[in-house]
């Protein structure tokens, strides 16, 4: 019954216009960034390498598809969660608002399975978003800008990664980015279980992300113990795949924290959804 319910959720997501909003938004956003970089990307790079260029010169195809993809990911890290929450935040509360939750909850399927099918469908949608982002950023970027070594500016300096060494990094980076966005999806579905309208969970999810991001960037001691536990702190962990040497322990820690977040959010959702009186 879980598989059948999940199929139902896929059908519903595919039929909603807002599901395509996220994909269209990514296409437009990435398109704009690619256009801008094609028009004046070297100035952007010069700004980054300015202080090095007094003594050094950089030869080779710096503004290549790999760097462009990296810049795209860097710029969109705040915006993609909204595109995910727009769909996943509606999965439970949207049914309540529409009244269909009443119809679903009188079927033989257990509420836990019904909810899990929504989590699975939300997860698959999130994966589609990440894959599309990857295609637009990496593939289209390489078609326009060609390939080459990747120059990454970290807080401790420049890292130049060789082209042959980049593929697996992007795969790992996207995998962790997916896990981070899956956390956003889980959070929005969890909030959706507490609401009977569509907008509330979406807005609340974004508010939480913004609040946690601000806490994460405020360099004050009072937040030092809290910061490593916030999921937003680990949303940028995909970048760790572009450091040399690879901070394996840090990446593992991020994965564990994000997985724990997902599990806790799912458990809270199951608890709430099973006890919820459906009066709408």
């Amino acid at each position, binding site marked *: 019954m879980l598989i059948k319910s999940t199929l139902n959720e896929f059908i519903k997501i595919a039929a909603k216009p807002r599901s395509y909003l996220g994909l269209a938004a990514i296409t437009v956003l990435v398109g704009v960034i690619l256009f801008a970089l094609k028009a004046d990307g070297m100035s952007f790079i010069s700004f980054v390498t300015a202080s090095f260029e*007094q*003594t050094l010169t950089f*030869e080779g195809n710096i503004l290549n598809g790999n760097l462009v993809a990296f810049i795209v990911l860097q710029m969109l890290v705040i915006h993609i969660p909204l595109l995910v929450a727009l769909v996943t935040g509606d999965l439970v509360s949207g049914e309540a608002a529409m009244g269909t939750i009443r119809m679903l909850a009188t079927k033989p399927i257990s509420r836990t399975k019904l909810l899990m099918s929504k989590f699975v469908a939300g997860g698959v949608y999130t994966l589609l978003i990440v894959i599309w982002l990857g295609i637009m950023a990496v593939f289209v970027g390489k078609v326009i800008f060609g390939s*080459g070594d990747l120059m990454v*500016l970290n807080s401790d300096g420049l890292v*130049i990664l060789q082209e042959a060494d980049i593929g697996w990094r992007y795969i790992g980076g996207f995998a962790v980015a997916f896990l981070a966005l899956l956390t956003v999806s889980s959070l929005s579905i969890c909030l959706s279980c507490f609401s009977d309208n569509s907008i509330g969970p979406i807005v609340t999810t974004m508010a939480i992300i913004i609040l946690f991001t601000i806490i994460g960037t405020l360099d004050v001691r009072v937040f030092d113990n809290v910061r490593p536990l916030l999921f937003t702190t680990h949303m*940028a962990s995909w970048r760790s795949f572009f450091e040399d040497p690879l901070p394996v322990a840090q990446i593992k820690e991020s994965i564990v924290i994000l997985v724990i977040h997902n599990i806790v959010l799912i458990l809270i959702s199951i608890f709430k959804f099973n006890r919820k009186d459906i009066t709408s």
Partner: protein
Amino acid sequence: MKKILWLILIAIVPVATNAQDANQTISELINKMHGVKDYSVDALITSDIPMVKILPSKATIYFKQKDKFKIDSKGIAILPKQGFTDISKMLSQRDAYTAIFMGNEAIAGTNAEVISVFPVSDTSDLILAKLWIDASNDIVLKSQITTRSSGTVGIVYTYAAQKKWGLPDQLIFTVDVKKFKIPKGVATDINRTGTTDSTKPAAKTGEIKIDLTNYKVNLGIKDEVFTK
């Protein structure tokens, strides 16, 4: 009186002779350099620069008289801004500098003449160039170039098969890194929770080693190679 004149002569002649020697040495060096009409060489660039991490990268270097120079790299290569063609370019303009013999020094067991080159113009980017030249082979063993824009770049030259052309098989650049800064807010990690070690003293220099192999000298290189 005569004695004083002789004393003055004895003092001046070595200076005059030495200045003439410096120019002579440089002339011979230039002549040897002009013997190379063009060359291409494969380069393996290994960098050890603070705040920059890069694996050894490969490139091909092209040169054609009198000042055509190109580095063709498949990946990203980091090279010093100064030091490749600066010496030959600088030394070719005889009236743009003054060369002074500073003495002799042994470099890796070879006796080298130390010659300082000062630009005539006050507005030149070059402040000072110091060359250690093996006069018997007309090759530069070491150089130190100080410019307003790039600070001081030191270069150590090692020669092997292409010694007859004056072309090194290894160059080691030492560059000034004091001015390196990371721009904030651009392409930086947003939520880094770690802290940088501020107890370690900041490095002041970095090193770039270039191993040159597979020289093709005076085989002819088309001009299009330098314009693509």
